[in-house]
Every structure is written in C-alpha cells, then in structure tokens.
C-alpha cells in the first residue's frame, strides 16, 4: 500500500528510480539532508536556465570564514552526540555551523578552514574511531597542509581505564598546532562520564566561536541539522526499569565462560530501537564489594559525603555512583601519591607502560587498596573515582520478531584474582537478576551500524563471542521483512560443544534459509588456534565475490585484537583475490567504510 503510491507520485522512471536507490543506499541522514539541499540548488539553477552544471560544492554552506565547522569522529555515538549538542547551541546562538562526520569531510577544504572544532573519541589501544581513520591518517601525513589561518579546539573522548586515554584527541590537538594553527581553547579530555568535561568545554568553545565570528556577517542558515530522534521519556540520566523476562545461561556447564541470554520487557516504556542499536544498562555495584572497600579504608558506610551539591552516604556513593571495577590512570596517580609504593611509582613513570597496562587490566579498586594501602579521606576518594558509567550492550533482537522486548547476550566477567572472587560491575549486577527484578535501561542508537536500506543486498556478519548479538537482531529483522539478500555469518568462540552461542537458532535459520552460510572458528577444539580471521581467509574467494557483488560487511566484538585481525584479513582479500597492492587494499576497505558498506561495532 505505502510503497506503490509513492512510486506513482514519483516523476522518475523505474530505471532512474533504481539508480537513485543504489546511489543513496548506505548514506546516512546527514548526507541525505545535504544532498537534498544540493539537488535543490541544482534544480534552482536549471530552472533559472543556467546551462552549466553547478559547481560540486562540498556543502551548501555559508562562506567558510563566516562559520564554524564542527567535525566529529565517533564509534559508539558519544562524540557525535556532543558534537550535535554543540552545533545545536551554536545555531541557536545565531552562528553558521557546519556539522560533519570525519569521513564525510572533504579533506582538501581543511586549508581554507577558519574555525574548526574537533570532537573525537579514542578506541581501545589508541585507535581512532572507524569514521575518522582517513581524517587522522591524512592529518598525520606529509600531505597535510600548513594551517596558519586556522583557529581550532579539540575535545577528546576516551576511557581512562585504557592506558592510551584520549590519545587520538591529543594527537590531533598537537598536530594542528604543528601545522601552524592556533589553539582557541585547551584541549578537553572527557572520560566515560563525559559531560563533566564535555559540557564546560562546549560552553567555552561556544563563547569563543561567538567572539571570533562576531565580526563576520552571519550568513543564511543553510545546513539543516539532523535533530536526533528523541528516545522517548527515558534516557541515560533517567533509565527505564525494564522487567526481566528471562536470564538464561547459554554456554554449557563445562564451558569456561558464563554467557547469559537476557530478555527484558520494554512494554509501556515507548522505547524503540533498530537492529544495530545498543541498550545501556545502568548497573550498580555489588554490596559485598562496597563493604570490602569500606572495610579496607576503615571507613563508616553511612558517613555523609557531599560533592557538587550532591549528598549521599559513603556506601551509596560507592554502590550507585562510582566506578569500582575499573581503575583509571588519574586515579592511580592520586593513589600513588598517597601510597608511596615503588611498584606504583615505577608503573607511572616512562618505561612503566607494561606494568601500568597490567595494573589497569587486572586490578580493581579493592585490590589496589589491599595491595598498596594508602590513607584516603572518604570525600577525596569519592571525588577521585570516576562516576559509574552505564554499560552498553548491542541488542540481540529485532522488535519485528520479539515485540516490546530487548534481548542481550552478556558475557559475565568473573575471575579469581589476588585471593578473592572478582566480578565485572554489570556481570555482578545482571547475573542474579530473575523474574521479579528490573534493570534500568535506555536505548543508545547506533546509526553507523545499520542493515542496508536495500533488502536485496547481501550481508556478511563477523561476530565472534558475544559480538554475535547484533547479528541475531539482523537475522531476525531480515527474516521478518523477507529481505531477499543473502546472509553470511562468521562466528567463533573457544569450544564448539560449550560456547556455540545461539547454536540451535542458527541451525534453524540455515534450515529455513534465512541464514545462507555459517562459517565457524572454534579456537580451542584443535591443537592450532583458529579464529574468525582464519575462517575469513579460508572462505576468501567466495567472500570476496560477495563483497564485489555489493555485500555489506559488519564486524562486532573485541576491538583490541579481533577487529584488527579481521580488518587485516579483509584487506588481504583485496590483495589475494582482487589483485590490489597492499596500500590500495586498505584504501578499498576505507572506501567501503565510507560508503557504509563496512561497519564495525567494536569495543
């Protein structure tokens, strides 16, 4: 009913219509808005009788010197959100703004840029977000132009539990200065509680922009900004208490890892999500862990502590408001000052990177307090600890298949260390949740991880471990919508018998031909370790044929190693089967990413 009348109203021939579909497939909303403006301008010129085609202006914007360009590179959507907020404010303040994602930014325009704000995150071990790879490489290369005319500021986003905290933001900030640009504002380094830094930085950036652009006449407002869809009444700061419908272990009892399939009800919340989106879970810390920390400090749990106008009991701060299971470098520094322990000091000095990495990955706060005792005032401790951040899980269901539910695949983090049982915060929080319980959640959209708009496109999904979660959603969606494109899944885990997540569902999907191919890599079932990248190589010729045929490729899961290895294996396909040189292969992948045919949701 809905598609046909639309086509009848369309003035395009079927062929043109198909061309248009192909052209816009994979472009995101920003680009489409821009295209609409661009095409409107083309139309206006044609109507005015101009014979010459319009200049392929990169953006129908005001004169560059009169506007501020806000460029973002975002993996999980945080940087994008901050950038959008800044753009909205600037626009509201009457400034001309161009908001652009890093991979949509025409690099040659940098030389003419006058005011540039960069909001960019750092992934894993100091990597740029996927959409900013090209921008970061260009800037670091010798091809980067001198930028004496440019004024700029950089806001880096990161996670201080990684040693390379905000490395990309810092590198860009330093490099722009090297290229002769002048810094408007000291760079920001926002941690997981990003508003604490991002908000003041944005306000300050806005003030400076107003001053700088004040003298310049304000051009017409032309860049339509994409207004983020409001996710209803529930959001990060006000999560919805979702009833738990199921909490089922989906690894066998002899398996190493406890992975849970959790089903939550979103009924009545108005929360909606698309395949590819994540669910934010606002976990609180385990009471036993809070008790252990309070005890290690010799403090009273009910001591009232006020910070920033917020007053709570010490135990409440620790239980509900502070990160206890992941340490950060700044906290280590503060602790080292108090502990006066050689081992800590060495780890924080140049040359101590390996030791630092080990401490950040292996130690929780309680371990640090026990091994390197130090005197902390409860107040100072709470102030020094990072606010407890929600955990994001790729949603493993499609609403078309499950209705008002959201399904998650959660790998529980549980291990023995330093003589006691350790749990991840969300793991300890989620694992005991049963029928009568609720979990505070919100939707975290991920527009960068979307099924092809064209249902006839093939897709290749690479999701080892719990990285397979969004692909369960993808398959459900494609089955429900009757998408004609073929679906190919790569999955891997340690053992076939115990860790084959959703095995029965994939078998069913293969039988029903909603999944067309499933390639597996169980690393520990034979003497040599086999991972998904090996499966990719093994299937190389055919996989490359799919890609050549327009397939979209998705990767989800571990960023530290898997995503890199898979990236390398994919690039290799272009060399081995496409006859490209190594550098060209990387560029080909980058082009795929830019065309939204290679998307990653890695963490």
């Amino acid at each position: 009913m809905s598609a046909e009348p639309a086509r009848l109203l369309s003035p395009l021939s079927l062929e043109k219509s198909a061309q248009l579909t192909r052209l816009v497939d994979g472009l995101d909303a920003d680009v489409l808005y821009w295209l609409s403006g661009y095409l409107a301008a083309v139309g206006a010129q044609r109507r005015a009788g101009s014979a010459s085609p319009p200049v392929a202006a990169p953006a129908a914007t005001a004169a560059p010197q009169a506007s501020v360009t806000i460029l973002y590179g975002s993996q999980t959507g945080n940087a994008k959100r901050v950038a959008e907020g800044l753009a909205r404010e600037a626009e509201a303040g009457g400034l001309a703004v161009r908001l652009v994602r890093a991979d949509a930014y025409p690099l040659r325009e940098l030389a003419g840029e006058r005011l540039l704000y960069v909001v960019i995150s750092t992934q894993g071990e100091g990597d740029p977000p996927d959409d900013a790879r090209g921008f970061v490489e260009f800037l670091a290369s010798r091809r980067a132009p001198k930028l004496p005319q440019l004024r700029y500021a950089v806001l880096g986003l990161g996670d201080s539990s990684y040693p390379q905290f905000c490395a990309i933001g810092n590198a860009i900030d330093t490099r722009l200065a090297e290229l002769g640009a002048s810094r408007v504002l000291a760079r920001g380094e926002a941690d997981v509680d990003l508003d604490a830094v991002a908000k003041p930085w944005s306000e300050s950036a806005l003030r400076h922009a107003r001053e700088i652009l004040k003298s310049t006449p304000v051009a017409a407002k032309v860049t339509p900004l994409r207004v983020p869809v409001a996710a209803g009444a529930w959001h990060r700061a006000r999560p919805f208490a979702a009833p738990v419908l199921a909490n089922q272990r989906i690894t066998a009892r002899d398996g190493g890892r406890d992975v849970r399939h959790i089903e939550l009800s979103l009924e009545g919340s108005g929360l909606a999500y698309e395949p590819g989106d994540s669910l934010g879970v606002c976990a609180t810390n385990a009471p036993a862990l809070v008790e252990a920390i309070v005890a290690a400090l010799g403090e009273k749990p009910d001591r009232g502590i006020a910070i920033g106008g917020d007053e709570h009991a010490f135990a409440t701060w620790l239980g509900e408001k502070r990160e206890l299971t992941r340490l950060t470098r700044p906290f280590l520094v503060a602790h080292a000052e108090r502990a006066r322990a050689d081992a800590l000091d060495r780890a924080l000095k140049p040359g101590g990177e390996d030791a630092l990495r080990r401490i950040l990955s292996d130690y929780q706060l309680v371990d640090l307090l026990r091994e390197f005792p130090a005197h902390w005032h409860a107040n100072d401790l709470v102030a020094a600890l990072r606010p407890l951040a929600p955990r994001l899980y790729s949603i493993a269901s499609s609403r078309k298949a499950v209705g008002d539910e959201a399904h998650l695949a959660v790998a529980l983090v549980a291990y023995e260390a330093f003589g006691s049982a350790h749990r991840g915060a969300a793991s300890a929080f989620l694992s005991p949740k049963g029928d009568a319980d609720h979990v505070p959640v919100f939707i975290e959209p991920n527009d960068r991880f979307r099924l092809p708009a064209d249902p006839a496109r093939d897709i290749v999904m690479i999701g080892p471990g719990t990285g397979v979660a969004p692909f369960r959603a993808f398959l459900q969606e494609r089955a429900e919508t009757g998408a004609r494109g073929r679906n190919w899944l790569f999955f891997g885990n340690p053992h076939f018998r115990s860790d084959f997540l959703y095995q029965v569902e994939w078998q069913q999907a293969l039988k029903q031909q909603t999944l067309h191919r499933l390639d597996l890599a169980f690393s520990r079932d034979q003497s040599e370790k086999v991972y998904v990248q090996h499966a990719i190589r093994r299937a190389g010729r055919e996989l490359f044929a799919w890609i050549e045929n327009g397939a979209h490729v998705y990767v989800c899961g571990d960023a530290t190693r898997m995503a890199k290895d898979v990236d390398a294996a994919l690039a290799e396909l272009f060399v081995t089967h496409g006859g490209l040189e190594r550098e060209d292969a990387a560029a080909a992948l980058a082009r795929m990413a830019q065309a939204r045919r290679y998307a990653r949701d890695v963490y």
Partner: protein
Amino acid sequence: MAATPLSPVERIKSASRRLRGTLAESLVDPVTGAIADDDTQLIKFHGSYQQDDRDLREERRLQKLEPAYSFMIRTRLPGGVVGAKQWLALDAIATTHANGTLRLTTRQAFQFHGVIKRELKTTLKAINAALIDTIAACGDVNRNVMVSPNPVESRAHASVYDWAARLSEHLRPRTRAYYEIWLDEERVAGSGEEDEPIYGATYLPRKFKIAFAVPPTNDVDVFANDLGFVAILDGGELAGFNVTVGGGLGATHGDAATYPRLADVVGFVSAERLFQVAEAVLTVQRDFGNRSERKRARLKYTIDDRGLDWFVGEVERRLGAPLEPARPFAFEHSGDRFGWIEGRDGRWHLTLHIESGRIADREGGAQLSGLREIARIHRGDFRLTPNQNLIVAGVDNADRASIDALVERFGLDGFRTASSLRREALACVAMPTCPLAMAEAERYLPDLVTRVEALLDKHRLGDVPILLRVSGCPNGCSRPYLGEIALVGKAPGRYNLMLGADAKGQRLNRLHRENVAEPEILETLDALLARYAGERGAGERFGDFLVRTGIVPARESVKIPMEILT
C-alpha cells in the same frame, strides 16, 4: 491386496548407494555435532549409533545448544577374542577419543561411548589399525557372531571359534562404503553399486543375530538368537551343529503383537554345510521378513506368521536337501565360570567379574589401568564373555602369580569377593547415552543388587545364585526375559518386574508386576524370597521354584532333543 508401504528405513537403505548416504558430508558439517537424519540409520551398519547425553538434554535445550551428541562405536569381534596388543590399542582409543571407559557387551563386543563427531573418523581408523573392524556391528545385517568363550574344551572350542569367525567374514557386507568413508580408500568404478550377493541392495529387514554354543554351557544364550548353532562333539571332536532358529528378545511395551521368543531346534548340520544353512536361513528372512513394520521384522515373527514347518521347508528347498534330525545335547547353565580354570592343554584361564561390563578407573578400583597393566605382561589373549565378563586366557602356570598380584592391586578381584547375585547380574547401558532407555539400568544395578543382597541375608539364603537382569527398555540387550528376576524399564524409576526364567536360557520369565517402583519391587521379592527360603528343594533355583509352586504360571521351555529322545 493393497501393498503395505515400506518402512522409511527401507527407503533410506535403498537410496543409500550401498550404505553411503550422505555420511561423508555429514561428518564435515561443522554446524552440528550430529549427522543427517537418514545417516543416523546408515551409520549403524558401520558399527556406530548416534546418541546424546540425556542427562544434559533439557539443560542444553534451555541453553539454546543442540543436544550433546556423541557416538557409540561397537566392534565386530567374533567370539570376543582380542590379543594383548589389541587390548592396549583399544584401551588407548577409549582414553584418547572416547569417555575413558571400555564397555563389554552381552554380545562379546567392545563399545566405546562418547566419541564426538569430529573424532569419529580418527577413532575408527585407530580401531582398524588394531586389526579390528566395526562393520556390521549394528544395522540390518548379521551382527557380531557369538561363540561360547569357554576355553576349557580347548580343541573343540578352537574349531567352533574358527567356524564362527569364518561365518562372520562370509556374512560381512561387501560394500566398500566403510573403507571409503572411514579409511579413505579411493573410490573405484562401481562404487555405490557393489554386488551384495547375500544381502542384496536393501540388506535384511532387521538385525540378525547368530550364536555358537558349546554344551554344557549356554553362556551365549543361544536360544535368544535368530540363528543358533549348538556344537555337537563326538569324542572331543566337532561333529557338526544342531541348528536353532527364531530366537529374539525384543518387544514393545503395550503391543501384544511383539514378544520375546526362544528359538526352535530344527535339525543338525555337518560343519561343512554350515555356510549353506546360514545363508539359507538368512535369505529366507531377507525375502520374507516384514519390511513394513520394523517392530515385527525379526525372524521370529516371520516364522510365527508363516509357521515353523513352512520356514524349515523353505530353508530345505534352498539347501536342496532336508536337515538331519537334531542330535541330543544338554545345557547345565548359562553363566560364566569365575576364577582360574585349567584348560586341557595345561594353560590357565582367569574369568574376572566386570560389573555391567563397564571397565573404568573409578573410586574402589582402577580396573581400566589394572587391565592395561595385565595386558602389558600377558602373553595369551582376552575373551569377552556373553555375560559382560572378561577372561584372561591362555596363561602359563608360571605367570599366574604376577597376574594375581595385579588383579588384587587394581580391584579386579570381584569374581572372588562379590556375591553370586552380583557376579551373574546383567545390565544394559541405558541412561544417559542410550536413546531407547526409558529407565536406568547400568547405573542402577549396583544399588539394586545391594538391596536384593540384603533380602537374601534377611532370609538366610546366603550366597544363593539367582540370575538378576536389568534392562532400561523392552528391547532386551541385557536379555532380561531370561532372568530369574528381571526389571524391564518403563519410565524413570519404574519397571516391569519379570520372574521365573530358568538358569539355562531355555525358559522365558513372565510379567509379574507391571510398572512398579523400587519399594514395590523389593516388597514383592521380600515375600517371594521368604517362601523360597522355607520351601525350596535341594539345589532348586529361584526361577524353577516360582514355576513349581505356581507363583509364576509355567511357560513352555525350548524343546531339547535330549528330552525328546528320553
């Protein structure tokens, strides 16, 4: 007359290209630990059953994991004889590829349990490397040929064993499928269309079992077999065989058209004509057996449906001559002779008790390790008995002491320490691997025996021998219908209590209490054993007592020529 449709298994066999099906593809399908449905029928002919750990079935269903599939592999081992080196090879296979146990079956075969799909081919290769194969160990063909392992009557026994092994070879399917799929033999022209001179393209309607008994011991339970040969000795030499046909114990609960049946003795044949008789019996069943309804497909139903006279006539027609009249013989019992026995050639044989035939290292005895140690020093061979026990055979007098020491050290001395009840008890595998099991058997047997032993004590019956058999389902792997006391599984914890067989394998028992749980079983036995203690005759067996007193209605015994003559 409307043709009755063939059973689905007949179609699978027929389309299988001589038992190949899609087994090769199934083995390399990485998405599942199972094989394709049709292949689960075909793999039986190769000596393997697909099973799954039923203890985990529900748990894994909730975990969105497929059942924990694994495969049972059964050897084809006529008479159950293996050398010491072969023993060590089988032990290594059990330890490396299976669940670390060796299971001795009631048909003198080894079973490996818990072999996962991707280990299956390696395991079968290793078994074949030990010069043992598994072809036709299961499936609608002649299965493992049983031979009384009694090594005492040395010369005659050797001769009987020899005939049995040759018959087993003669009746082996001719398809090369086994060698192509498991041993990587190259496919040659005609692959998939091999001539099966005895079986034809669809093999037999159902399994077919052959046993050779050497009187006076009926340890093979010859009357429970489709085809039996009872060795007739003349001055210590083999003169030929009495032929028995139509035995079979399987039944289906609640289906009166199915029942256990003991074989009829139909004549005598000289050893030279053994193959001809076997082929004639087998081909009559091939041509006339029921291929529509598998539970009515065994030879016993072909005979009962058409009459024994018709059947013998048809066999004789194929032989071109009548069978000679059966010759007299007598069986004394169907059990094993435990402990050391000297053979006529002066070599010694030690029969060990293996509870339920399961050789494992576990608390109370490292039997697998112990037998490994024995195999390392043993210069004779090993013989599996039809009662799930094991004979260390052909030992020089001088080597007995060192074997005794190992027997002691590794808890293999059950033959000396256990009660008669325990030593003679049989149980099939049942839970958790057997897909047919309705109730526990092997895992339940030790406790059940202990409780019945307590009743024997209570009634001062001491070490009285009673044949106790437990089966997880009515199909009869532990030959429950020949137990003086038998439990046939109906549901978890519930059994049909069967009573009153004799101890020679010549009279079936009867259903006494239907679908009862342990308390009722023990209560019933308590009362009956009390009467037995007070009223039994000298040397009277419990089963015979029950029939004599009318507690269990009499049931016709097999007609033995000895009795016919006298």
